[in-house]
């Protein structure tokens, strides 16, 4: 009887632990390898934090603007402006998480380059560039220069970054 009870308890623990294993296959903000982001939606949401008009651009424009190695990128979405200001959004899904740090470095260079140019062209834009957001999680990288950094940060956090 005692053995039977023990066996029953252990069997229940087994089932519970197995269920936990399958249940934890989805999105989890604490497990960076399992992050799944809707890149297009995230880009759209971040566009909402920019006051001026931005428009999504082709992958060719993304490649020539940010100098990413597009062979290492599975999905890319970016929104650029009319040339009047520094606001822009990029969301990348890299084929492998090992490329994300290089993508982040390229985006940091982008910020430096833009800051240099806007310092003499339209100085108030430099403040937005100083507050530029660059974040990576799992295979994803997000970059945003915006009119509302707080709101953008909240959107990015809610997306799992």
């Amino acid at each position, binding site marked *: 009887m005692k053995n039977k009870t023990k066996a029953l308890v*252990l069997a229940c623990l087994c089932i519970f632990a197995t269920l936990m*294993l399958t249940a934890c296959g989805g999105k989890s903000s604490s497990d960076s390898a399992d992050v799944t982001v809707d890149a297009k939606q995230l880009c759209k949401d971040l566009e909402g934090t920019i006051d*001026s008009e931005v428009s999504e651009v082709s992958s060719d424009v993304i490649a020539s603007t940010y100098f990413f190695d597009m062979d290492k990128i599975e999905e890319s979405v970016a929104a650029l402006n009319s040339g009047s200001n520094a606001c822009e959004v990029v969301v990348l899904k890299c084929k492998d998480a090992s490329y994300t740090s290089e993508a982040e470095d390229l985006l940091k260079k982008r910020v430096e380059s833009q800051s240099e140019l806007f310092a003499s062209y339209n100085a108030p834009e430099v403040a937005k560039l100083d507050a530029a957001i660059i974040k990576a999680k799992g295979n994803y990288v997000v970059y945003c220069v915006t009119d509302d950094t707080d709101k953008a940060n909240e959107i990015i956090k809610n997306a799992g970054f």
Partner: protein
Amino acid sequence: MAQKKKRPNARERRNGFIINILTLIVLILLVFEGKSLISLFSSQTIQDRIRQEESEVFASANLTEKQTEAVTEMSSENSTEKSSENTTEQENESETDAPVTDRFTGLPDGSDEYMDIVVPEQASAVDDSYFEDAVFIGDSRMQGFRNLSGITKGSFVTAVGMELENFYTDSQIATAAGNVTVLDALKNINFSKIYMMLGTNELGAYDMSQVGESYRQVLADIKQLSSSPDPIVYVYSVIYVDEPLVTTGDYVNNTNVDAVNMEILKMCKEEGYHYINLNEVLSNGYHGLISGAAEDGIHLNTDYCKEWLEYTKTHYIPSV
């Protein structure tokens, strides 16, 4: 005398074995799931997960609402645009005759003698492949064109603030290795067509004739870097501005736009370049930019950048 321990029988041995196996399985699963278990039961994570799921639910609800709102807005905008167009047309008609839009539209007064270098409309449009060997060089307006027009071919060497004065000196073209000068950037591009747009940042120049001379020199140097001995040179007109919206200085006005364009026309005539008169389609007919074409009065929005591209595709020099 103590009771001797009985040896377990086969059944008891089997039960014990099963229990040991189950214990092992549980331990293995706990090792894999230990981290998740800890996070599962942390209150912060529970709150975050609830918030995340809430936002997902509301996001999908909002998306449906936004789609409905967008359709409603589009239909009300269409009716508003139509009624405002009708009103504007009526107002224009009441002030003066309705402007005739043709290849003379948007040209500076007194530019008749330069009509032979103004690129006429061709019978058929080229597609983007025409731009494969083209380089587009220019200021922030050209950069906006690259970003918003949907053009898929061509090399772009653009920078906000590019002007004739800093053309040779400023490292303003972004590359993977950092910013370089325009000429250094062009050295790495094979091009046999040039599309050039400068002049908006020259509107405050004291001497417009000097603008013409500087433009002439810049284009001569660019041509030297072409992979073709005789590249086709297209020079875009400076696009009019929407003066009431401009905040960057009084000198950014359409009188100065016409003055710069006159110098550009002279230069094109003398050098055999081809002048693309964008103001034919972007002018309001009164030497100004179409109202609503640019949020800040200068940088064109998406629709008008697309218009720019379409105009470029129908205004080219057919190959002989």
